[in-house]
């Protein structure tokens, strides 16, 4: 039995510095501007991990940082096997997410679904085809004049869609449920978690008591269509302590919300940017997004009791840093090959919830994300989405893709071909905005003139004065629209 090797002080220092530097705004702006990804904070941290992988034969290494001392497995397969061994021994406490600046965030604790079903059975096509499409059509109607869907519209729209799919139509409006779920996840591991989780369960209880048949909430009440499987078996076949339906539904909602809001948007961005790995359709795009930008890019799994793995003794009190998202570097050759990523590994750590041994809810969430991508790329009355921001090129995959920085346009199928969506913050995009503004002012001019023509203004001097003011403003709007259109023509040249 051996103990894990410890990283050299310099390796610890570089890794720690990369995490610390993330807390300083603009610290890696020069490297980013020069396109030197390996010198950015993310690049440096990943570079250290790649160096450790090469120099330590891939065996897990202990890294000491100001944010904790971590046992870091250095490959996806090792990570999965180590965590599986820890979970099998019952040695792992619930995980927390570690962000790229070393801060810890609560994760909604994993709960196995109370039904050992494949995702297509847990979430029938009817639940996706009808209700989800309805929510997405509603979201598509919130596009701006330039057909762009902003993050401010996307996030609440997809959160609503997730509630609709998971908890039913009555939950779609229930924004409080989403907030309670978020706060419960934030409190995971603290003394406040129990009360917040209990509040979430109280909130979910009515949706389970009277479930919408086209939602996941109805699944426990639905008659089994396949062979009977003992309910107390996990998604990977091992016996589990499947908890209350409220816990499972809350976990599913948390995971589906994350996938719908974040992963689906990233997948659409990769598709719009023409990334080779995303060209295979919605499933490939979602798999690529999850592979490169997993929502839980790094999770810390505290070890409660000693266990052994492949001759390595892992002591109680150790913290395992499972960071599949950080094990890929800027110079990873897979970035250039366009090789399609593999689908979610069965039994491996979940990129959506941090579970050490896979998550059936994550598979459902992936299916929802694929349905979202399919809607916006194939089903909706729109042409191929256009990526307005950030600037991505097919030959260079970024290390991170923050969803709030993504701005996509979904032009209607009949949109004028002479006015394709322009990249954000370019003169062409301002020209499009100016043209839309001019059109709006023209419409206002017509409305004001028509209002001034109403017979109701006749009668007294005050009203006549108002009528004249309306006409003056109508003229001014027309003139302003003309000026703006001329400026837009120059901007678009």
């Amino acid at each position: 039995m051996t103990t894990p090797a410890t990283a050299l002080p310099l390796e610890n220092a570089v890794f720690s510095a990369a995490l610390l530097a993330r807390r300083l705004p603009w610290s890696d702006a020069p490297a980013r501007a020069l396109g030197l990804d390996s010198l950015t904070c993310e690049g440096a941290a990943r570079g250290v991990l790649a160096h450790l992988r090469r120099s330590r034969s891939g065996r897990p290494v202990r890294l000491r940082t100001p944010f904790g001392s971590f046992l870091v497995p250095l490959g996806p397969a090792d990570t999965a096997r180590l965590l599986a061994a820890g979970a099998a021994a019952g040695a792992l406490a619930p995980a927390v997410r570690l962000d790229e600046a070393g801060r810890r965030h609560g994760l909604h604790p994993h709960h196995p679904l109370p039904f050992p079903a494949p995702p297509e059975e847990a979430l029938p096509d009817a639940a996706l085809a009808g209700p989800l499409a309805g929510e997405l059509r509603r979201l598509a109607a919130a596009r701006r004049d330039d057909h762009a869907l902003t993050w401010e519209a996307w996030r609440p729209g997809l959160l609503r869609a997730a509630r609709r799919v998971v908890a039913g139509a009555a939950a779609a409006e229930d924004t409080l449920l989403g907030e309670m779920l978020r706060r419960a996840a934030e409190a995971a591991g603290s003394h406040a978690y129990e009360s917040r989780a209990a509040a979430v369960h109280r909130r979910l209880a009515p949706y389970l008591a009277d479930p919408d048949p086209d939602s996941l909430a109805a699944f426990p009440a639905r008659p089994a269509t396949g062979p009977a499987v003992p309910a107390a078996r996990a998604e990977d076949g091992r016996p589990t302590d499947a908890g209350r339906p409220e816990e499972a539904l809350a976990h599913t909602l948390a995971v589906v919300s994350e996938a719908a809001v974040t992963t689906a948007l990233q997948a659409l961005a990769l598709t719009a940017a023409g990334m080779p790995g995303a060209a295979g359709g919605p499933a490939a795009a979602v798999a690529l997004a999850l592979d490169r930008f997993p929502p839980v890019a790094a999770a810390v799994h505290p070890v409660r009791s000693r266990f052994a793995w492949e001759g390595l003794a892992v002591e109680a009190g150790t913290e395992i840093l499972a960071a599949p998202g950080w094990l890929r570097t800027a110079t990873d050759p897979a970035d250039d090959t366009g090789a399609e990523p593999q689908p979610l590994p069965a039994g491996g750590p979940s990129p959506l919830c941090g579970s050490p041994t896979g998550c059936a809810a994550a598979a459902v969430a992936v299916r929802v994300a694929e349905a979202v991508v399919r809607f916006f790329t194939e089903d909706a009355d729109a042409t191929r989405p256009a990526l307005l921001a950030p600037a991505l090129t097919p030959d260079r995959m970024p290390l991170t893709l923050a969803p709030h920085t993504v701005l996509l346009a979904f032009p209607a199928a009949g949109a004028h071909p002479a006015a394709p969506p322009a990249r954000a913050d370019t003169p062409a995009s301002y020209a499009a905005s100016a043209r839309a503004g001019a059109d709006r002012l023209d419409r206002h001019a017509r409305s004001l003139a028509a209002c001034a023509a109403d017979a109701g203004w006749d009668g007294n001097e005050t009203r006549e004065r108002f009528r004249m003011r309306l006409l003056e403003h109508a003229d001014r709007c027309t003139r302003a629209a003309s000026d703006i259109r001329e400026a837009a023509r120059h901007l678009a040249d």
Partner: protein
Amino acid sequence: MTPQATGASPRQLEDGRREDTPDAHPLPGPCDTPALPETGPAGSPAAAPADGDLLIAASLLLADAALAARQAGAHLTGALTGGGFALQALRRPAWAAGTALSCLRALTSRAGLGFAANGGAVGEAARIAGNLTRRRPAAVAMAVDAFALRIEAATAAHPNLGSSHARRLTDALVAGDRLEAVRALHALVERLGVTRALTTISPVIMELLALIGLLDENPVNDSFSWVTLAGGVPTTDPLFGLPCSLIKHLNPGPGRAERADPDPILAKVLGTSRNDIVSYINDIGALGNHGLVLLRRIACTDGAVRHVLLLPGTSFGLLSNSTPQDLVGAFDGCLRTDTTYTRAAKKLLKRAGVPAGSELMMVGHSLGGLTAMNLATDLDVASEYRITHVVTLGSPIDNKRPADHTTRVVSLVNKHDVIPTLDGRGPASPHDVPDSWVELSWLDESYDYPLSHAPQAYSDSLRGELAHHRDRVNALIGSYDGEIIGNQPYMLRDR
């Protein structure tokens, strides 16, 4: 004058319908207005809307046009000052010169947008320069006329606004003549006294403040006016443009709740109390305005135990006192949601041991109603308890929304009462309350403030001619019928 239920402003019934008074005309919303002239062309008497409606429709059109013109100016400013333009200018200087010229022409044309630069560091600097040199862009001119139309529309429902003294004041403010406005205000107060003058201009107070913000030389208070025009919640004060968040420093304290014993008067009133809106108002009146609130426990007829929290309003004796029920607290509650009153009330609920998940109804008058709504917007409270009802009397709550979409909001408004208009929603404002809210309003004989704002005025109205409103509210809160098994007053303190 007997109380009259009114529907002149857009009041919602529980099912989303408008108040069913015969003279009620639903106001066109911003989305409806463009269709107005098309469906009612000139010379078509059948389609001609009522006078007030036409004024309001025109004000909405102008407000939308003003906002569109302002946004167009911001887009052009952004185009000129953005990094993308600078990069292109390095590559194509001739194109950049021509483009800059055409953008500047559009941004400064007197017959078009006027001096319309805004947004971003450069744009804001240009806007401030224009403001200081009294250049009035098209957007401002349209906004001023939109407010003028709103004031004219409000005059139909509030005839005192049409008196010569009031009109002198409003005309002066619309013209941007502040000296004349001060003289007119002085004359109005001399003629009517302070309370009657305040009551006279109260229906359009937000519009008058917004006009001051737009037409003065202070460039940092304009956002108040634009937010008021768009129907949002101002985040700055109207005169100096200071952020509303500053008020939290004037109203500090973690809040404290202590059990208290009812005095004989309160005990007597509570002895006859029941689940009836008039009874709740009387209870609030008996609690007074010196920090006392009441938590009631009811064994309801359906077997559930529910709770009612009664929250009185402001004490006007001092600007600030040791309780949350003071003037500073009222402003704080109006502008923010986390106040000493809400903090103290949350401690009360904890201290009283109200079980998690309990159904809770909150009834509040004035600041108490504001606090009830602020508690309903608080995620901690809305998560811990099931807030089923928020019932407010004379409270400016229209810009707040409960966290739980199932919370039933019932707002009772005496339209002579100044206080409910402080949320920015006057009789001619464009924004409306959600369909699920129930807002019942009326005009009663209590014209002057503060009489029109007193709980007793509300109680008297609901006991008399407006008994149908009382019945309606009682039906809405019927789930709280049952036996009162606990009445516990609490004294709330700032710290």
